């Protein structure tokens, strides 16, 4: 019964977190299709591992840890890295007005974020999107606080440079 109750609880938390997990994945990976897959993978891992969840961490935190692990896998996997963002395919037939108006679709921030190394990108998203404190980021990623600070700084400097800020 405990396992069933836990499973129900995990499902409930997953449903509640789903939009945020999707948002985090979308920002980190830059592609909605990948974000969907990641959210699904997180849900599968969480439900598969529910028997082993012993309450050492709060349920949402546990799920975030899984999410970060899945995102890390996704970004570092050499197979997925090969994926080309097709939305950026050049469109020679259009004039300067369109090219500029397409600023709507050619989002500079997105490109700057997606060019960051995986570990910097995750830290940046956990801070700017999730609003996590440094120690929480360190906890979720399993890295020291000093590393969080240095990665975050490196990520922001790089974004600033890419956007010529």
């Amino acid at each position, binding site marked *: 019964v405990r396992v069933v109750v836990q499973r129900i609880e995990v499902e409930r938390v997953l449903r509640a977190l789903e939009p945020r997990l999707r948002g985090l994945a979308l920002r980190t990976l830059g592609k909605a299709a990948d974000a969907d897959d990641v959210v699904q993978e997180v849900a599968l891992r969480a439900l598969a591992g529910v028997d082993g969840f012993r309450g050492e961490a709060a349920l949402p935190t546990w799920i975030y840890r899984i999410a970060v692990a899945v995102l890390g896998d996704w970004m570092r996997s050499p197979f997925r890295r090969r994926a080309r963002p097709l939305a950026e395919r050049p469109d020679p037939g259009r004039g300067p007005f369109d090219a500029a108006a397409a600023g709507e679709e050619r989002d500079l921030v997105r490109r700057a974020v997606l060019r960051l190394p995986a570990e910097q990108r995750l830290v940046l998203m956990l801070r700017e999107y999730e609003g996590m404190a440094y*120690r929480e980021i360190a906890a979720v990623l399993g890295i020291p606080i000093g590393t969080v600070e240095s990665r975050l700084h490196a990520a922001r400097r790089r974004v600033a440079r890419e956007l010529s800020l």
Partner: protein
Amino acid sequence: VSCEGIRLGPYLDGELDAGERADVDAHLGECRACAEELRAITAASAAVKAWRPGRRGFRGLPLVAAAAALVAAALLVVPGGLAPRAEGVVSLRAGERVRHAGVREYVAGGLARPAEIECAGGTLFASHARFRLEDRPMRTRTKVGAAVVATAAVVLWGTIEISDRAGGRSTLGEGTHEIGPPAEVVEVEGGRGAEEPPPPGDPFEAVTGVVLMPDGSPAPEASVALTYPAQYAGGAADQATISDTEGRFRFASAAKPFILAAVKARAGAASGYFTPGAHAVLRLRAGARVEGRLLDEVDGTPVAGCLVSSQMTGGVWGHAREVTGADGRFVLDGLDPDASTLWIRPRAHLDAVVRPRLARGETVALELRLQRAAALRGKVVDAGTGAPVALLEVEVWGNPQRAARLLGDGRFEVEGQRFGTSIVVRAEGYPDTGFSFDDPWGSATRAREQVFRIDRGVLLRLRARDERDRPIAGTRIALLRAGSYWRDLGTAEDGDATVRIPSASPREWLALGQHPGHVFDQTPISPARAGEAVVPLLGRAAGTVVGRVVVKDGRPAAGARIDVGQAQGFALEDGRFRLGGLAPGRAAIRALLDDEAASFEADLRAGEETDVGDVVLRGGATITGFVTRPDGLRVERYEVWAAQRGGAVDADGSFRLTGVEEGRAYEVNVRAGGMTKAVLDVLGGTQSLEIRLDDWATIRGRVIMPEGEAVPVGLSMGCGSPGRPVFCDTRLYMDGSFVVEGIPAGRYTVTAGAEESGYARTEATVEVEALGTAEVEIRLVRGGAVEGTVSSPLPGEKLMVTLTRTDSGATRNSAVRDGVFGLAALAPGEYVAEARTYEAHFRGTRQAVVVRSGETARCDLAVVATGGLVVRATPGAALALLDALGNPVDPSTEERRALSQQLWEAKGRPDVREKSAREALEAEADRALSAADGQGLWRRLALFPGEYVVAAGELRCRAVVRAGETTELDLR
């Protein structure tokens, strides 16, 4: 101070204490380089924060280029306590025009909020735009920024003036701010206007549309997002714009079927599914608004700095969050009334989750009184020596607003501890060790500094090796503790990694390896007590698949996505793909592009490339339909998926599954409320179906409080069906009423409680008929508490106390720290308290306890050394153990565990995660407790010292058990 020690990131993020902050402030005043650096990272931070990729997270203004980013450079600091209503004008230089302008308000620690915009003259192209920042409370040092955002390339930058409510112009900095370098202005020469048709041969079609208010009038300045459904791999570009003053909008191009979504703050949201070339009409559905105030329960003072967030599901609602100001007030709007739950996460009060009753287009006022939380003080010592441990960190889970302060000498303090708080202690030379508190508010544990003992654990040396025992350099190694704790050790350059894990871990750990050329199985690590352990990770050579994806006429399918199990790749321009690192053997491969797909299987050989040749995509089919209840009414909110891909549910309640292969059978799954339903074998192709749910039962109820007491903020509920895994979609409102909708008929157990406020969790069972509605009431009572001591001859051993309710068998556990335990918010009734230890040959005493509402019962327990008994009898003889008074002696937990363990080993360890297997073993263990085995031996373990009687049929025989000894008895 030199620039070396200046930590600008933590300064920006509010992670510094007052002293460090003052140092940075002083340094910034004299160092231009650091000030410039701070400006740059602040702008980058704001740009990333403001970046909305659309889809469900979409809310607010468009993500137009880097324009929004720059604005952050013009951050203004508002003095504490001021509630500004800033007004201003964005005016543009002569000859420049702006199509849309937007201003955002940046709240420290929160998200940017769009402000109301008026374009001058009501025309699309304007020379200036007025804006007004909403009149709302802000907390100390609120940052107000303003962004000028233009979607056209005409001009991006102008000047901005901001004035405060009093009409003065100097309150917010210098008055007039120039935003952005003029050098970045892009001139338009000979470009195509937005209203002109696309030139011939343009592969993309434009999308135009209009956004309407709920009453049908045009919705000016609504945010509109265009996104592609998930199945269009590779093409999921999210675009956004804002509608003009007539509510019209236009996207330059759309290549595939897409979803449009529109939002206008305080008006509502709408979304719909369209195909290229469409003229879309989006009528907004009104959202709800909450104006709330958080107060301290005792003295009614405002609770400032509390994070209030709402997570909303479905469509484009996304989420909203805000931090309360000095007056404890917050405002959230545009909420989805059907799915809005507010999560309240204060610093020094207990967390709360509330669900106000909302209605579209209406404002709800909310006043919540939050309960103060006790602080947790602790000291971490070495389990062996008892000496204080130099802490690196103490993490607190659950609430980002809380933090643990390290006080030195192994001591730490956490403000506002709450139910289920978990901490993880980190120290050099020790494994990360977690502790959790089931009952932090129990007075016995709360008043004292608690001692946490950690040991040095086991040092694991993990070695990634191939089949010939050579190191696999560059293997990424991670540890997983049976699903609950996951630790990435990073890439091991030489294939070796080391890590410490706790020694007394009752569960198995798993080691995982990942390497492009190798496939690793999960390697279990058996728990060791201490010292070191070497764990080899075997990597087998991986397979690679190559091929070419083409469409029906043989042209290459550039960008097609290839799925092989969890691995994913994409076809290049010539249609070729290559995917490595795959497990050898038979693999299911799927290729997908737009709505065409192909799937097949191939045998992958280890260490080799397997060429699958040309893969021809087929299909282009769609399954559409809708979901109905058994009485024929349509269900509007549900999820639908087939072949692991989700479908889109439109506003009218119909669904659409694309990317379906023709001629292939599909299983379509639906989940609505608590119901799931699968329709088997729907043949691909464009076809429509109605999925009728088997049942749609509803439970409605109310939590009844004791006379004169208000519903507590921390009220929570659950609903489940005993023995059946039914997902219950529960909605609990702040007035204590609740609804569980869309569940199958049957018997349900509904529980409610507010343990943090001292109300015991109370249960009610209810039976609901098919298509019926059952009503249930749950009466909450003030719980009682139990506290006491556990004496033990085992210093440092982990002890706990389990309280078992005599009538229902429900249990609650409390950790024992420094010999003290406590549990609060217990339902009144009779319980048995038992002290428990993991240490073999020791056992805790039991005691009956009566819990009365509002009272604290005392209970003192002990852990004592036990003895054993071995009886020799005729094989299979029925035996029983009685105490000196003739009552049967219950088997101890340890006895059951030892017997089950023996049985598992005898049977070659069946999968003990299966509940039925475990129960069968326990039944067998019970039999072993009542009869001699085939050799005529009968053992009883963990008996308290004293006199016992062994009964074999009519025969009675006296036995004396001594601590630490095994008494033998021969009955033959």
